[in-house]
């Protein structure tokens, strides 16, 4: 039996562990890079950007109620986004499971959920910093704002819809009237002809 150096297993272990470590760091780095490169689920959060910009503004100082309004707008957008995530989750999960939706979209969706969790926590923190306990009513208020804005959008269409229906009905009525007149005319002609033939017969 040849002499095996004591260093051989140690060298083996070192090699093994370092290659595993190398693989893991590269793998993780790639994963992070892939996540960073992912397109965000939602567009830019304008309401949040505006709130933070107003908060950072020092001269002229922004009135407190303007900051509150901006935070309410931010919470409203948060609610809208959370509602949209909740609405699409079941269908998207099903599609992903069946393979109709790729991993990338699913990862983006899960990332968006995490982002929104953090965003809501932060927004609640801001509300409580402005007024203790406001976070408890901020989101209910924001939810009503989402509903009310949907209602207003629908009601704003009413005059236009009425104009369209009015015109449609006018056209329909004219057509019916002209058709009736035609019918009357042709029946009048028919009447006249029968009278003529009657006269001839006489």
């Amino acid at each position, binding site marked *: 039996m040849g002499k095996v150096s004591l260093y051989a297993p140690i060298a083996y272990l070192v090699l093994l562990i370092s290659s595993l470590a190398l693989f893991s760091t590269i793998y993780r780095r790639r994963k992070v890079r892939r996540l960073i490169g992912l397109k965000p689920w939602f567009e830019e959060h304008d309401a*949040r950007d505006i709130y933070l910009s107003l908060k950072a*503004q020092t001269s*002229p100082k922004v009135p407190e109620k*303007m900051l509150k309004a901006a935070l309410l707008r931010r919470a409203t957008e948060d609610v809208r986004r959370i509602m949209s995530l909740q609405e699409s989750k079941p269908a998207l999960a099903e599609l992903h499971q069946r393979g109709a939706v790729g991993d990338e979209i699913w990862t983006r969706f899960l990332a968006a959920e995490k982002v929104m969790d953090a965003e809501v926590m932060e927004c609640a923190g801001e509300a409580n910093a402005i007024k203790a306990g*406001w976070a408890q009513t901020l989101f209910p*208020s924001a939810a*009503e*704002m989402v509903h009310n804005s949907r209602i207003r959008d629908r009601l704003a269409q009413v005059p236009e819809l*009425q104009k369209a229906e009015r015109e449609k009905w006018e056209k329909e009525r004219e057509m019916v009237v002209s058709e009736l007149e035609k019918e009357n005319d042709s029946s009048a002609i028919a009447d006249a002809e029968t009278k003529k033939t009657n006269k001839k017969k006489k």
Partner: protein
Amino acid sequence: MDYSEALLPIIFNEVTKHVALSEQDLTPSRAKEIHELNSLYRDLVALNADVPPPPNQINGRLNDQVRKLKDAGNASYKKSQYSDAVRMYSLAIEMALKRPPWEASGFVREELSVLYSNRAQAHMSTGAWGDAMVDADTAIYLKRNFPKAHYRKGKCLQHMGRLHEAKAAYELGLESGGADGSDAELKSSLAEVNELLFL
């Protein structure tokens, strides 16, 4: 989180009491957001509290004003002054829409649905079937279990000769699950339409 990159050069104008953003930073979505923000700011300034109350707290003064306009509309309707009634109901709708946006949307729906349904009836009395149909349909959008609004929508459609749609409206009204005493009218109108359709 660090948002310093996202900060916008947004300015509060102390004269107009509005915030504004320079042209180069203005995207369409930001413009819309700023417009909404300025309008919400006005609502908050008009509010007699530092933050909006819980949604179920309803502005009582506005309630009274809406009710007065609605009563005026009803009075005009009873005197057969239908176009006056339409105008009063329209004013009541405008007034109801002045509610601050954080108030309970359920209440807003209820209040507005009655106004649209009444305006539909006033339009019907002047023979404006198209206008009336849209108003009745809007009342239904606001409150689905509203048999009277379904009935009015059906009547308008029937008058415009759209019998299949009228039939659907009456049937929906009977299925809507509401109870405002319109069931008998709905049933007889449905029978009428069925007869016209040779069903």
